[in-house]
């Protein structure tokens, strides 16, 4: 399976993402610059964290108009797995690939520490290696991770089982303790915690690795005969 790590000016978790895929997951991966206009050779798209375009105007607001985003939208429409972490999640929200928006953290602080998450839905292409209700430890590092959506949107997220991860102890004021959501089709996941920073015990946790293994497992089941 071949992954693309999309790099915007100001991305800063792209190297961690690359390392997680290449060295810990053991799959193919390439960096793709934001002005690229072809993602057809990739099976999975990863939008890393950071501060694309300096977070000018709003987090993710400018990145959403980068040339490569047309291709990211196309990949999402084709059903390819698209994962946005932290700033990547913010970009997916601004691009309208996921519903809702991000606000400043409730306490106005940049929070950088490991948090406990609950796997609410383990029937997605991103979470099939986890148990339902499993508690995992993944670090967060953000100042704007206070997820917000209106009540109607929240009801539809709940009804369609689109809430994938919730915080055990809400760090940022997110509505319904939301840490990660998928689109209705289930192939676009946005999450504030950084699974790519939790891929080996040396890093303090390897709980994030199963997320990437889940993507590969789903892809193999769909694309490889005798998988």
């Amino acid at each position, binding site marked *: 399976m071949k992954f693309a790590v999309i790099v915007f000016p100001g991305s800063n978790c792209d190297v961690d993402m690359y390392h997680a895929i290449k060295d810990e997951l053991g799959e193919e991966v390439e960096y793709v610059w934001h002005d690229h206009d072809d993602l057809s050779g990739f099976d999975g798209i990863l939008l890393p964290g950071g501060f694309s375009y300096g977070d000018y*105007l709003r987090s993710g*607001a400018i990145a959403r108009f980068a040339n490569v985003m047309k291709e990211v939208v196309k990949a999402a429409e084709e059903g390819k797995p698209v994962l946005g972490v932290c700033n990547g999640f913010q970009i997916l*929200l601004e691009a309208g690939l996921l519903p809702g*928006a991000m*606000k*400043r*953290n409730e306490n106005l602080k940049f929070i950088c520490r490991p948090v406990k998450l609950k796997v609410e839905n383990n029937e997605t292409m991103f979470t099939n290696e986890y148990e339902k209700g499993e508690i995992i430890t993944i670090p967060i590092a953000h100042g704007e991770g*206070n997820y*917000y959506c*209106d009540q109607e949107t929240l009801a539809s997220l709940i009804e369609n089982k689109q809430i994938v991860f919730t915080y055990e102890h809400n760090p940022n004021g997110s509505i319904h303790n939301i840490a990660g959501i998928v689109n209705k089709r289930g192939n676009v996941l946005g999450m504030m915690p950084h699974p790519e920073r939790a891929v080996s015990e040396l890093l303090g946790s390897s709980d994030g690795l199963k997320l990437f293994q889940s993507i590969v497992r789903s892809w193999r089941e769909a694309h490889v005969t005798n998988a």
Partner: protein
Amino acid sequence: MYKVKVYVTLRESVLDPQGNAVKNALHSMDFNEVEDVRIGKYMELEIGETDRSVEKMVDEMCKKLLANPVIEDYRYEIEEVAAK
């Protein structure tokens, strides 16, 4: 040409954590009369001569980029001025 002033604020229904912090600071300065603070953004645009409707253009800019309608409200003032 046109001078455009755009004001963007969090929607009334959305809690403003920055506004709350500033309100508390104002209270600690003894301005207890302050009942609410909303923090927003102010942008100035200069738009050259065009055949298009400036109002329609600005509205589209606000909807698609300058504000995020999920959490923000916007308003704008358009003033026609002599070209530089």
